[in-house]
Structure formats: structure tokens, C-alpha cells
């Protein structure tokens, strides 16, 4: 058996420097799939790995496997735009995402892995006098919940984001912003690697290149998971497969209020420091862009989902144009930059824009899904809450509202306010 990764510290880095390459070990050990586990987590993305980590750490469940069709962090955890924030309007969402943000603040220390949390502020721009009270309402809701939010007028915003200062003729004038200072960015791959490393150190088996093809059941329980590496007995099964949740629904024979859409992201060539915050720009109509600058200097851009079901991971060209247009509208100085890379993730879009963490069909089958475009920022809270649900059998208060039955009972969490569609019609 391979040896576990070492503890990282300033002292250990010095030791590594002196002892050469022999110091470094793989972050997680690639164990073989055993015959039986207490919990099998399907999907080694952020939510699956965090769930496994918390099952082992908080609840002492050591016989846990995370099985992954491809590689650790191959899916959306490595495809997002790295933004973390908790500035949601609805109480169920802002308390949950605030829990995630607080966990992110201490996650580097907890995992003993540098996740590069950068609380650089998330700036939601107001583009009209009508936008301003809408943002103020959200800010007031947040402050009543004890979550930081600051409403800035144009003058204060120009001081906070000097890149916006050159007054140009804009199609949509910027009149102010709602700022969450503790929001910012986190290195997305490091979150996957950090959780995988920490879970592996606690004895969790992380099995890559292992596709789940079926579920064996008896009565109201799942008994085993059929995988491409063989059958494995499971005391409980957690599906955290993000953009492939629709396929899980099909496997279980349960129709879900989910469609799979693409969300594109892109990064420009690196430039000198220009933007030390995250700008969120939603122009009237469909153009939308959120912009941050990576530590390497590239401008990281994202927009709205493509708006129709797709599993291709190749975004639609006109949506890419929308994002670029919106970006150049808000920061015209980026107009000459070239795009370096462009990619898309598959998003499990629910019909109210909020996630689902619930039992599905069987007593011991759990679904952690429907994260839409907000999955990355939720990972630490989702993992802890989902693990608690699996271990104790009842959902913690934080995720009670994320039950699947809310669609049937009408207790929707319609954060975007679109009604039962992933995009505004």
C-alpha cells in the first residue's frame, strides 16, 4: 500500500527543499475497490469528496469509497470560475451559503492544503436606478441575517474598483453596486485535491476510472452498486454526479425536476494586475458576465447557461459572444485581449434554481444534486450537511428546505424568480 501524503508546514517545505524529490508523495492513495463499504459515494467532485471526508471525520465512518467514472476533479469542480460568495436573497439559501463561506475561510487550515482563498470582494453592479433598490433589498436581507453586504454608490464604487473609474459612454451606465467583501475566489482544483488528500488520509478509498452502471436493491433498500470494476456492497449510496444527475434519475427510475445545461467559462491571456475583485455584470436581456483576474494574470470570464440541454461540454458560440460582449461593455480596456482557453461544464439545473439534498426512492440512497451554477461555492457546507444526513438519517436544519418534495408541495426556493425553467423566457 502506498504511503499517505505528509503534513504540510513551513518546516516540512524546508525539509522538502533539503531532501529533494523523495519528500513528495501522492496526495491520495489509489486503492483497489473492496467488496463492501458502509457508504459508497458516486462522483469524486467537490461534493462527493467533501461528503466522504465529513463522513470519516465527523461521524467516524471509515469504510467509505468514492467511485469516479473519470478522474478526481474532472467535472464541474475543475470547470467553474472559482467564485465563492453567500449573497443570496432567500433565507434558506443565504444561511446555507454563508455556512459554506465560513467553512471556506478556514478550509485551508482544516485540510492542511492551500486552497488560495482570496476574499477580494464580489461586486454586483447596478446598471440603472431600478437595479439599485433590487440590490438594496438583497443587501438588507443579508445584513438582517448577519451576513456582510455593502451598498455602494458610484463614487464609492470607483474608489473600490479603480478599473471602472474611467467614465465612458456606456450602453448601460453603472450607478452603484452591492459588495460582499468576504466573497472572492478559491483555487478550484485545490479544493478537490485538498478534500481528496484529507479524505484519503482518513482511510477513504478513492477509486478513479470506475463507472457506476447500476444499483442492486431489495425492498426499500439498495444493497450493492454495480461498477465497471465489479459489484460492491454498500450500506448507503450517495450520488453526487452534478451534470450526470439526469442519468442517475434514469438509473433509479425516478423522474427529476432537472435539466442538464452547459455553462461556459473562458480565460484571456495574462496581463498585469488590473482587477482585484470579482465583478458581476448582468445587463438587461441575456448578456451576463462575471469577471475576475487569476493570480497568473488571466481574466477569468463566465456568463449565463447556454439555455438548452446538452452533454457535449462544448458551449454554443452565440453564448460565448454574449459573455465577451458583456465583459467588454463593463471593462472596455479588455477589448484587445485574446482568449486563451474556453470550456464548458454540464450543470444539473433544477426547476427553481436551488439544490436538492434528499433521499430518493430507497431508504439508503441519497441524492446531492441540482447545484445549477452555484455548486462550487457550496461544497464545504454541502459535504458536511450531506454527511450528517447520511450518518444520522435525518437532514440537518440547514438543508431541510432542499428536499425533493418541495416541488410537489409548492415550497419552492425560486432564487432567480424565473418560474419552472432554468432560463428566463
Amino acid at each position, binding site marked *: 500500500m502506498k504511503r499517505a501524503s505528509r503534513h504540510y508546514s513551513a518546516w516540512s517545505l524546508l525539509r522538502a527543499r533539503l531532501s529533494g524529490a523523495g519528500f513528495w508523495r501522492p496526495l491520495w492513495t489509489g486503492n483497489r475497490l473492496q467488496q463492501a463499504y458502509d457508504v459508497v459515494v458516486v462522483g469524486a467532485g467537490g461534493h462527493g469528496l467533501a461528503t466522504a471526508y465529513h463522513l470519516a471525520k465527523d461521524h467516524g465512518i471509515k469504510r467509505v469509497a468514492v467511485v469516479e467514472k473519470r478522474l478526481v476533479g474532472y467535472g464541474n469542480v475543475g470547470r467553474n470560475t472559482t467564485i465563492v460568495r453567500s449573497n443570496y436573497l432567500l433565507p434558506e439559501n443565504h444561511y446555507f451559503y454563508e455556512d459554506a463561506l465560513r467553512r471556506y475561510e478556514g478550509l485551508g487550515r482544516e485540510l492542511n492544503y492551500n486552497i488560495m482563498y482570496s476574499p477580494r470582494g464580489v461586486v454586483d453592479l447596478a446598471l440603472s436606478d431600478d437595479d439599485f433598490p433590487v440590490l438594496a433589498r438583497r443587501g438588507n436581507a443579508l445584513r438582517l441575517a448577519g451576513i456582510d453586504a455593502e451598498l455602494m454608490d458610484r463614487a464609492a464604487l470607483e474608489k473600490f474598483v479603480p478599473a471602472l473609474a474611467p467614465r465612458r459612454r456606456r450602453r448601460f451606465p453603472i450607478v452603484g453596486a452591492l459588495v460582499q467583501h468576504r466573497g472572492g475566489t478559491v483555487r478550484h482544483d485545490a479544493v478537490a485535491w485538498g478534500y481528496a488528500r484529507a479524505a484519503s488520509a482518513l482511510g477513504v478509498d478513492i477509486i478513479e476510472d470506475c463507472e457506476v452502471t447500476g444499483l442492486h436493491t431489495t425492498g426499500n433498500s439498495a444493497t450493492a452498486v454495480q461498477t465497471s470494476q465489479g459489484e460492491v456492497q454498500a450500506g448507503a449510496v450517495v450520488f453526487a454526479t452534478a451534470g450526470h444527475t439526469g442519468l442517475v434519475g*434514469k438509473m433509479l427510475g425516478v*423522474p427529476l425536476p432537472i*435539466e442538464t445545461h452547459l455553462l461556459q467559462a473562458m480565460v484571456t491571456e495574462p496581463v498585469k494586475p488590473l482587477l482585484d475583485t470579482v465583478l458581476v455584470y448582468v445587463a438587461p436581456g441575456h448578456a451576463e458576465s462575471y469577471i475576475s483576474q487569476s493570480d497568473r494574470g488571466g481574466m477569468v470570464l463566465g456568463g449565463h447557461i447556454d439555455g438548452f*440541454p446538452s452533454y*457535449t461540454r462544448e458551449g454554443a458560440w452565440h453564448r460565448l459572444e454574449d459573455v465577451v460582449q458583456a465583459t467588454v461593455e463593463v471593462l472596455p480596456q479588455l477589448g484587445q485581449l485574446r482568449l486563451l482557453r474556453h470550456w464548458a461544464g454540464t450543470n444539473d439545473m433544477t426547476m427553481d434554481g436551488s439544490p436538492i439534498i434528499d433521499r430518493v426512492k430507497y431508504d439508503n440512497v441519497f441524492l446531492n444534486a441540482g447545484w445549477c451554477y452555484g455548486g462550487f461555492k457550496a461544497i464545504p457546507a454541502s459535504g458536511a450537511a450531506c454527511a450528517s444526513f447520511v450518518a444520522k438519517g435525518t437532514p440537518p436544519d440547514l438543508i431541510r428546505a432542499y428536499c425533493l418534495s418541495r416541488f410537489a408541495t409548492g415550497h419552492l426556493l425560486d432564487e432567480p424568480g424565473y418560474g*419552472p425553467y432554468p432560463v428566463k*423566457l
Partner: protein
Amino acid sequence: MACPFCGLRPLEEFLFRKTVPNVGTGSGVGVGADADAGASAYAQVYLRVDSAERSVEEWQHVAGCRAWLVVDRNPSKGVVRSVALLGGAQ
């Protein structure tokens, strides 16, 4: 995408609305199986057929003739199999 009236037009002229449940997907799951009216209404409004191989969807040619369409696509390959008018009207 090929509109029955306008011919081949750019994708951005069309707006996707929702997947059409239980239309030849062979999934055996989805909307319409519920005898209870409330459950059926819930299913009609919220449940979707999310298939990687075949997706039958309602679209509208919003920036063209505004016709409602039924589009049969393969979401894994981005290939449109067929486009017809919604309701089968000619």
C-alpha cells in the same frame, strides 16, 4: 436549426422552453403516468426527461416566424434529428 417555415437559421434565433416528457425516449419514466390530477400537474410543470442520448424538446423561433416547434436532438453530440411544428399543425 432548420425551421419548417424559415429554413436553416442561426441557433440564437431559437429559444428552448422545455423537454417534452415521454415522447419516444424509451426511458419508461416521466410525466403522464400519474393518475392523480395534482401529481400529474406537478409532473407536467416540474419534471423533465433528462436523457444524454435523445431529447425531445419544445422550442420557439422567437427571432423569426415565432412558430412553436418540437425538436428531436441528441444532447451528447449536439445533433438535431428533426424539427416539426408543435401539435403537428401544418
